[in-house]
């Protein structure tokens, strides 16, 4: 089953500094899937996000957080999380909790066809002040993965495009701009970057990461050894 962004994926949710510390998606009806949360936040301190959901609590795993607490990190926060949803649900909502009362936003993706045990592959993070950013390359660990990217811009510069990523972006004028997106990958071992273009010089943090498909783990080869006739297998059979 190939990876796909399910049509049940809810809209981005955004809060201004006056809103408080949380944001909740509109209700959605996801199938069994991996839920991928891409969070962006404003504020100079090293703020952080956490995730909750209605109904039976899912285990939300932090993929990475990039903020001013990291060496070379910029103000604001870019963070990503995933949770595995083993069965479909109705009227589900997902809430982000931000450690600051500054502006914040989250885009949640419902990803079908993801590896149901270890969906996360490689990941990387960084910061940039260039109008055109190419994220630091990582090497994909499985074939036909998706690569996601999430960013915040403390300078609140307008997003202007990407040459390789389907983005969902927003801006609170004078405060923050934010966005996230994804693209499909090819063979395992690919060098993966994302292109992020801003209208002028930003103060950018970003996190990029790989979500693997079912059966997408890199093949583990048995070491060569003696075989009996009973162990002989057709040449077309993989170990």
């Amino acid at each position, binding site marked *: 089953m190939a990876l796909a962004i399910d049509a049940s994926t809810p*809209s*981005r*949710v955004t*809060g201004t500094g*006056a809103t408080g510390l*949380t944001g909740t*998606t509109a*209700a959605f009806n996801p199938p069994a899937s991996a839920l991928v949360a891409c969070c962006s936040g404003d504020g100079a301190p090293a703020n952080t996000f956490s995730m909750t959901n209605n109904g039976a609590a899912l285990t939300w795993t932090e993929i990475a957080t990039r903020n001013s607490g990291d060496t070379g990190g910029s103000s604001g926060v870019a963070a990503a999380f995933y949770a595995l949803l083993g069965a479909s649900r109705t009227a589900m909502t997902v809430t982000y909790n931000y450690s600051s009362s500054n502006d914040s936003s989250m885009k949640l993706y419902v990803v079908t066809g993801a590896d149901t045990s270890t969906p996360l592959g490689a990941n990387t993070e960084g910061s940039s002040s260039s109008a055109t950013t190419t994220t630091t390359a990582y090497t994909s660990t499985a074939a036909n993965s998706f690569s996601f990217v999430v960013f915040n811009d403390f300078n609140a510069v307008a997003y202007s495009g990407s040459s390789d990523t389907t983005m969902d972006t927003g801006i609170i004028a004078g405060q923050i701009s934010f966005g996230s997106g994804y693209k499909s990958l090819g063979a395992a071992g690919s060098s993966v970057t994302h292109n992020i273009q801003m209208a002028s010089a930003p103060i950018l943090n970003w996190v990029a990461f790989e979500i693997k498909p079912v059966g997408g783990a890199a093949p583990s080869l048995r070491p060569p050894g003696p075989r009996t006739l009973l162990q002989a297998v057709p040449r077309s059979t993989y170990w």
Partner: protein
Amino acid sequence: MDGPPMSSPYVQAFQDNFGNVIRITVTFDNTTRALSGATVYRDANCQWTHIYLGLGADGTPDTTTKAFTVSAGTTSINANQLRQRGLNTIEDVLALQITAGP
């Protein structure tokens, strides 16, 4: 960043899963902060037909009393219609989370 107080207009746009857009543009007096109106826009095939400000009693945006049903194209909302939803100043709007949905 902690910039100066927001100046009119306040715009939030949301993309659906097919690239279609729904958007709200709220205008206000930069001095008094009083809302003067809003316009909402929706691409004809956009999955989302509502813009939700804040949460309802059950903690979901879907039940908020400050929801706007958005027809395809551009629709104007006057200040009275905003006041009927308890939205008098831009700070009333900024105090609420915002999202879109079906």
